[in-house]
């Protein structure tokens, strides 16, 4: 898309609001409605990748130190990673604007 969604007028849309740019769903910020965010105590992390496997958003990737960490642009704050992590690395905390 040439303009951000909030600036598109009805005339900017393709016929039938067809999206002609592949992979544009990546621009959609699903982290918008998060009310909690995961925080990490990486000292306990055994790098098992369970959190990555369970994350329904597929937004957990390895950081520079190869620890598994959520991309907050997409993380919805569901807390599944915190629940599944065996060594209790992850704590969900209230999202404060």
């Amino acid at each position: 898309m040439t303009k951000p969604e909030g600036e598109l007028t009805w005339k900017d849309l393709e016929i039938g609001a067809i999206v002609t740019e592949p992979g544009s769903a990546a621009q959609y910020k699903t982290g918008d409605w998060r009310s909690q965010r995961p925080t990490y105590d990486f000292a306990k992390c055994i790098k098992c990748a369970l959190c990555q496997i369970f994350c329904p958003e597929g937004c957990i990737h390895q950081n520079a130190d190869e620890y598994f960490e959520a991309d907050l642009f997409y993380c919805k704050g569901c807390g599944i990673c915190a629940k599944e992590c065996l060594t209790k690395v992850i704590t969900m905390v209230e999202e404060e604007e």
Partner: protein
Amino acid sequence: MAKKVGMEVSVAIGEAVKLANADVVAAYPITPQTHIVEHLASLVADGELDAAYIPVESEHSAMSACLGSAAVGARTFTATAGQGLELMHEVLYVAASMRLPLVMTVANRALSSPLSVWGDHSDAMAVRDTGWIQLFTENGQEVVDNVFCAFRIAEDQKVLLPVMVHLDGFHLSHVIEPIVFPEQSEVDKFLPPNHYPLVLHPDKPVTMGDFAPPIIYSEAKWAQEVNLRASKEVILQTWQDFGKAFGRYYSPVESYHTEDAKVLLLTMGSFSETAMTVIDKLRGEGREVGLVRLRLWRPFPFNEIRQAVKNAETLVVVDRALSFGGPGGPVCSEVKSALYGEAKKPKVVSFVAGLGGRDITPAGFEEIINKGIEISQKGSDNEFEIFGVRE
């Protein structure tokens, strides 16, 4: 040379779709549409029509298959009726809002319950707001002609919308009528090949029917509305071009002996033909009555309706459907909104008649007109009246 043949209207629709050279027909049989798709199935099976016939498991699937077919740029046709149209309901919205050109004939049928396979306009009215272009036809020739026009309108680059061609179930779908068929070369000339601009193709992927958050949904809907309204220009042009090519002209609203008429009757669909004979009779008796026939149902021809009825004192609208708990007849309701802001307008009287296949005879129409005049003079506490219902 065009040839005139006697043919059942449903079969004639199949022949028209063949002449239009459809690529895909996806349909589920339902009375009184069955003969249309039955004939198309045999045309495909016999190799007379080079198309894919997709026998689906429901009307919901029929319309869904049509979406896919139109999305890859294939010329697509389907037909349904009554309950079948209702089962398609949610997909009808998708077809229109994804701007997919396809053509569907609807052999109008009453809705359950009680179960009725016979005709009225309940099915059409229930899909009024789905965003389709909708035309009503009065006889076999009109249906055939408008199948060609519907493909051309739907596929026009300025339109790209699905088109419904309504014909009354049984009263029209199952009668044998003399119909003039154009030559293949004439149809090919009138109806250029379909070129959908954003086809689904792996070489250039697109996403159709994507997710739209609140920040963009209103823009998408307004674009759709602007487009449907603008389609009227193409509809008018197509009917003009059809008239020039084949000598039969169509317009959104047609007037029959309306000049100097104090009283006008307004009808939609095949019952208009009966109404015309009644107008002839009453004119013969010196009465100043006329008939307005509505052909284009969506986009609604507001200005044409205003023009057609502005000089009358009384306008009697006959609907073949009921809006339960609402204003009575849906056509009448639309006509009233068209006239509300006008300084000079007739008194409008609403009748609902011909439900579930019940005939309106010439004597019936005469009675409707007379009662309508009486109501317009004396007034009535009711929004509308069901004509001929036994008390």
